[in-house]
């Protein structure tokens, strides 16, 4: 039975910042199929999910031609609330898709809105809790859950409505491997119940066992439409040309650090948050890292990776222990001068009205005069391929370019240690490779870099040292040798 039918659909956004348009999309999706939508960023996969769940044309404005039919209903002429019992939507960002503040009310939120009878809600709720195994998450504040847990509640909230179709827009991009495994179970459950699931994703590995069909989008059109079997038959080169991520290759790095005189020491680092003083968020005996290396920081969410980065950058003042860099003991004030963190959401870090102003702001405290500063700024922008954008407003740039502007600011203020917080989440293959190249350039000019990541591919591309966190402790840290690679592969296994 055909559940979903798109006939010659074209769409372009009224505000082109909101996404990529689509041209002449025609396809049908039968009941019970799990479909993976993939393609480079800007190919229109998110737009396609919005056409299905009715956010286009009811929420995002633009010009739409063609017809989308879901369960016999014309999407454009139905209201969103008529579609909500049929289509469940899960979005990318776990923190911006809950309406209430506690898990229980969030799960029944949709059911309550459409005025489902109480007994029915109770029944659906019990089933959802059971099917998704949510007992541990009940009666909690949503603000204290991890990204993976929030995403699970988002799934539960749509699942309680018992829709026939689930539409997911990059649901895994903020999750660690544990979160992804949970998400896989949820989707497998929906598949068993005979639901249709449509997932737009750029991380493909975890869907290989789940999806039945792959729709590859390119430039707003359907590039190819194939079964999972066919898709698996493609070689790695073919996939990379398509801009798709593949299975990561972790291989030992043969670089020797023995001759490296400069070291970066962490001794007896302890830190606990004000709210839970008795629990140590960070407890590290001794770490020794070579200056000028690229260190991958790995571990589950909540293991202390971000806390460590915050301490290193001098954001947390009440850290116990010593950090020595090139033989100097660094106090938190020195660290804030020496270190820079590229935050996961770069938007927080851009303040001015043009790219060049952004760099000038970073040099405000330096002794150079105005013209010298301008020369230096242009040099840095040239190095980072940003010279063409120097007068653009930073907020009008793409995600990758913003990241680069942020790094440019770090260079302008002569920071020596660069920390990246999940820099490649949400990047397609080409952008990830560009980022890896940038990391290598930074290494060339002698920066020490630390990358917090859940992405094995970026580790395979550029990390020559690895650090593994668990429960606030560093379980091991070492150069990326055969041992470390084996342990990583084990950790990233689905």
């Amino acid at each position, binding site marked *: 039975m055909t559940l979903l039918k798109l006939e010659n659909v074209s769409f372009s956004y009224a505000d082109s910042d909101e996404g990529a348009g689509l041209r002449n999309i025609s396809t049908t999706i039968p009941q019970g199929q799990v479909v993976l939508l993939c393609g480079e960023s800007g190919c229109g996969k998110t737009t396609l999910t919005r056409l299905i769940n009715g956010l286009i044309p009811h929420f995002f404005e633009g010009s739409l031609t063609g017809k989308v039919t879901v369960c016999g209903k014309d999407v454009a002429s139905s209201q969103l609330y008529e579609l*909500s019992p049929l289509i469940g*939507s899960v979005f990318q960002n776990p923190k911006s898709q809950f309406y209430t503040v506690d898990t229980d009310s969030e799960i029944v*939120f949709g059911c309550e809105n459409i005025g489902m009878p109480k007994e029915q809600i109770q029944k659906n709720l019990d*089933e959802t809790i059971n099917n998704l195994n949510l007992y541990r998450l009940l*009666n909690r504040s949503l603000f204290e859950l991890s990204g993976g847990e929030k995403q699970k509640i988002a799934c539960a909230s749509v699942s309680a409505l018992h829709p026939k179709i689930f539409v997911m827009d990059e649901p895994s991009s903020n999750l660690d491997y544990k979160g992804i495994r949970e998400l896989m179970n949820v989707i497998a459950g929906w598949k068993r119940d005979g639901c249709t699931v449509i997932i737009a994703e750029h991380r493909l590995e975890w869907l290989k066992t789940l999806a039945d069909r792959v729709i590859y989008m390119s430039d707003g059109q359907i590039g190819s439409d194939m079964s999972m079997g066919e898709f698996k038959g493609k070689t790695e080169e073919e996939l990379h040309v398509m801009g798709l991520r593949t299975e990561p290759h972790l291989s030992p790095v043969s670089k020797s650090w023995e001759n490296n005189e400069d070291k970066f020491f962490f001794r007896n680092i302890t830190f606990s948050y004000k709210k839970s003083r008795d629990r140590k968020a960070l407890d590290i005996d001794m770490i020794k890292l070579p200056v000028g290396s690229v260190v991958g920081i790995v571990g589950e969410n909540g293991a202390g990776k971000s806390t460590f980065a915050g301490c290193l950058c001098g954001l947390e003042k009440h850290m116990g222990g010593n950090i020595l860099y090139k033989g100097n003991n660094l106090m938190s004030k020195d660290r804030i001068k020496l270190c820079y963190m590229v935050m996961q959401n770069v938007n*927080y870090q851009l*303040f001015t009205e043009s790219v060049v102003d952004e760099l000038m702001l970073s040099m405000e405290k330096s002794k150079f005069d105005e013209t010298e500063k301008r020369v230096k700024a242009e040099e840095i922008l040239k190095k980072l391929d940003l010279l063409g954008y120097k007068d653009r407003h930073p907020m009008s740039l793409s995600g990758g370019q913003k990241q680069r502007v942020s790094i440019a600011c770090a260079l302008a203020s002569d920071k020596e240690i660069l920390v990246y917080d999940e820099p490649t989440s949400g990047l397609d293959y080409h952008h990830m490779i560009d980022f890896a190249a940038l990391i290598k350039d930074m290494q060339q000019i002698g920066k020490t870099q630390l990358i917090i990541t859940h992405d094995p591919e970026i580790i395979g591309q550029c990390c020559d040292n690895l650090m593994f966190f668990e429960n606030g402790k560093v379980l091991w840290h070492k150069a990326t040798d055969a041992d470390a690679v084996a342990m990583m592969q084990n950790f990233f296994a689905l």
Partner: protein
Amino acid sequence: MMRYCVYGKNNQSIKLDPRTKLLLCLCISVTLIAGSSAGVLRYLNYIPALVPFLFMISLKKYKNALIYLAVYVVCEFGTSALVPYLPDAVNILFTGVIAFSTRLIPGAMMGWFLFSTTTVSEFVTAMDRMHVTKKITVPISVMFRFLPTIREEYTAVQKAMRLREIGSFRNPVKMLEYRMVPFLMSVVSIGNDLAASALTRGLDSPCKRTNMCRIGFTWRDVVVVVLLIIFYSCYIPIAVFRR
């Protein structure tokens, strides 16, 4: 299959119906802001000001309660003691404002109490029972979720500014701009995502909303209302006869 009871929680010592809390909020603000503080009324005003303090104690927020008490006492008694010793300019500009804040703070603290002890669904249920339209309920209910989000976003921006070493106060106007631009950008984008997600779950449905949440008046609410009646039966005659 196990049956799960929604909203079975009772983690606060004084469990009041949201409507009672709303009434208290209104009474405290109106009495202190619009009422007078002449003569005996000045002492009667201490009673509504004490209410948020008692509620904070009941929540075991001793630190907040003490801070509130200290701020109130300083504003109430400190200013009148200091006025004779301060230059006129300072008195005109600041002392009046501080003295007036004794009338605002209790209402604000009561509002904080309302927001922190009421869940979104309790609030929506209460509003539905009072037949308040969705046009009013939806924006207020979003505030419950947005206040913590605003705090999260604001700390993130502050962190970003410290990383860029631009947190100084040499140029306060610029600092405000640097702080507000990324902050507003991210709050707006969260708001948009939130609206999209809520709409796909039927927020705009015209049919009558089912409320799974059980609220209702108990003896505690009766006590509060009786106390309010007693208070006003003293307060109003005094206020009227003093004229």
